[in-house]
């Protein structure tokens, strides 16, 4: 008797192991109702998507939409992809991860999706530039964009009569003026290395060509030629920052700006919900970072914050398209825009958040360019390289940084550069 129990326990444990090892795959169709599973990566937008999911399911009997918003969604997605467990739609940012997923042939060509005609061309072009080598077809619907530049405390600006600068010299003069009033012009949270990229991106769109990374991969130019001025100017900003900006984190900087400890904060619109959580009454507006002395060259740093891609092995393409159509309905776009202070990628009249007032002309005219770091491989840690450079007081700091940028780029992008070389050999007439 006793023996049998032990045996049964052993068999049970074995069965457990085997079933655990064999747990894979998922069904997506039952009783004629098609289930579409969507994973979205923005933790800030969980509530919005819950509401949208509910609205969709109330109006559709034949399709059931399930939207998941896991914490640290990018890591979750990657681990799911390792197990070859794919959702039907992913809503991610237009950054290097998109390039990599696309390069791994994970996405479906959706050029026959009718909704694409309503999307602003500038954002579709950004996705094209994210392809390592030019590909046929469209693989993502840009949904929401964000805008990065300089957030400023409108109340403070009105109180002292400061004006929005349109050139680099004006910007520096403004910083001097603010400092002279005894107010802190800028606040940085450079301990979180990624925040080093906020001023970097905002200035690089003005000073460097938007396809600089592709050009470098094709061997046409170097970063040293294009980024020197960006790097130099970012270091100059330190003169107007708080004492020891490397000691403070992103949260610290948001809190400080929210409490009126600084007049301006160089960061993207994505920081506004965080700032408002500290001080709900703060009146924020933002302007385009004027890194160049030619106002014509200064454009808005805006990228695809959220775009929708259908996975290559989605079985119910029509149902997936129906979800995309639903999400792109004006009413739903406006709902998202209101909640997240986002910039819609869809053409049409939408009411934008007041904190985008000074950026509106740029958005309407389409004078914008993508974040340059969307092309940087994450493992290269350009953000940490910028931090290293900003902390480096030696005279050769700038030269060292530029040299490092170029050498490390080659090392981390070896496989991509090889691909671009092969492509240019096969298509000698392109570009």
């Amino acid at each position, binding site marked *: 008797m006793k023996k049998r129990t032990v045996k049964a326990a*052993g068999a049970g444990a074995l069965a457990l192991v085997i079933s655990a090892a064999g747990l894979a795959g998922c069904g997506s169709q039952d009783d004629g109702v098609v289930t579409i599973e969507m994973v979205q990566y923005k933790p800030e937008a969980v509530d919005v998507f819950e509401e949208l999911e509910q609205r969709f399911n109330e109006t559709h009997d034949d399709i059931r939409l399930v939207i998941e918003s896991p914490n640290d969604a990018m890591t979750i997605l990657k681990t799911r992809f390792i197990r070859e467990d794919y959702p039907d739609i992913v809503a991610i940012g237009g950054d290097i991860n998109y390039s990599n997923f696309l390069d*791994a042939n994970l996405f479906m060509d959706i050029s026959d999706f009718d909704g694409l005609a309503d999307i602003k061309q500038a954002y579709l072009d950004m996705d094209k530039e994210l392809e390592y080598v030019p590909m046929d077809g469209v693989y993502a619907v840009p949904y929401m964009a964000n805008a990065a530049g300089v957030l400023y405390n409108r109340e403070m600006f009105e109180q002292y009569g400061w004006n929005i600068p349109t050139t680099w010299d004006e910007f520096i003069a403004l910083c001097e003026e603010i400092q002279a009033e005894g107010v802190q012009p800028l606040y940085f949270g450079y301990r979180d290395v990624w925040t080093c990229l906020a001023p970097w991106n905002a200035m690089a769109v003005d000073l460097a060509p938007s396809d600089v990374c592709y050009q470098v991969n094709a061997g046409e130019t170097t970063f040293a030629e294009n980024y020197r001025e960006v790097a130099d100017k970012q270091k100059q900003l330190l003169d107007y920052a708080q004492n020891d900006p490397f000691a403070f984190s992103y949260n610290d900087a948001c809190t400080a700006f929210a409490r009126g400890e600084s007049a301006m904060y160089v960061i993207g619109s994505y920081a506004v919900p965080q700032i408002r959580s500290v001080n709900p009454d703060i009146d924020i507006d933002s302007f385009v970072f004027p890194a160049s002395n030619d106002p014509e060259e200064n454009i808005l740093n805006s990228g695809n914050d959220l775009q929708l891609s259908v996975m290559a092995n989605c079985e119910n393409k029509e149902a997936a398209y129906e979800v995309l159509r639903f999400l792109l309905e004006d009413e739903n776009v406006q709902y998202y825009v209101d909640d997240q202070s986002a910039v819609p990628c869809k053409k049409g009249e939408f009411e934008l958040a007041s904190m985008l007032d000074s950026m509106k002309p740029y958005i309407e005219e389409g004078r914008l360019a993508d974040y340059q770091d969307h092309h940087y491989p994450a493992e290269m840690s350009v953000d940490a390289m910028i931090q290293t450079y900003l902390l480096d007081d030696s005279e050769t700091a700038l030269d060292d940084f530029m040299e490092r940028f170029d050498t490390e780029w080659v090392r981390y992008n070896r496989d991509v550069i090889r691909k671009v070389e092969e492509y240019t050999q096969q298509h000698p007439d392109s570009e």
Partner: protein
Amino acid sequence: MKNGKMKNDRQRTFMLITIPVVVLFFFFNTFPLLRGVYYSFTNFKGYGSYEIVGLRNYIDLFSDGRVGNSYLFTVKYAVVCTVIVNVVSLLLALGLNSRIKGKTVLRGIYFIPNILGGLVVGYIFSFFFTYILPYVGQALGIEAISSSMLSRESTAWFAIVLVGAWQSIAMNTIIYISGLQTVPEDVYEAGSIDGATGWRKFKSLTFPLIIPFFSINMVLCMKNFLMVFDQIMALTKGGPSQSTESISYLIYQNGINGGQFGFQSANAVVFFVVIVTISVLQLRFTGKKEEQL
């Protein structure tokens, strides 16, 4: 005959207990390890298609400045931490093992850091280093701590040492206390007749008798500190200037978040070999010095 059958039965029972565990261990430990070794020969990004690249990852490892720095930092951190932790916890154990009032309460208090999560402790210390310590430094006019320790390359690593040590001293103290309790009182009595007191008593009697505990502490400490991760995540995220990137942090950061799954698998394989080697050497070295009563 009957005896043989019983032995057989016994063996079968043992087998039935052992096999499921072995299978579980194989599936969740050995198999992933072997997969990792396989991926270390590819340019796998963590998903999608990949190619076998032979030894390229291993060759790259030895020419990669960032990996080199992470090894230097981790070893420096582990050695300094191990020394500090063992010295302090041995002293604490000696104190807490002596006849003092409220011994049990004190033991309980000293054990608290161990039951707190690494990240929680990290975030609390992060606040301490960023706001409280500089404030104290400025108030007292002490230059060295009047700006955040975490924002300077020269001090950030030591801040992490402090937090790591603060947390692991608890467990090591408990192991030392249990070690000290295995030393029978009559040894001390015999020693005191021969005139062994104070430092002599510790050096010639106590320490040799707790060497097994010392060696287990050294090995555990070294292994834990070489794999430092939580504290870095909470305190510096590898900064400033990438000066506090530990090996585990780099493997996680670039292998999972970045697209270097293959390359960092190679790093993990090398790291595994390094840890095994260090642990074996340590056990050999201290094992030779053990005394038996």
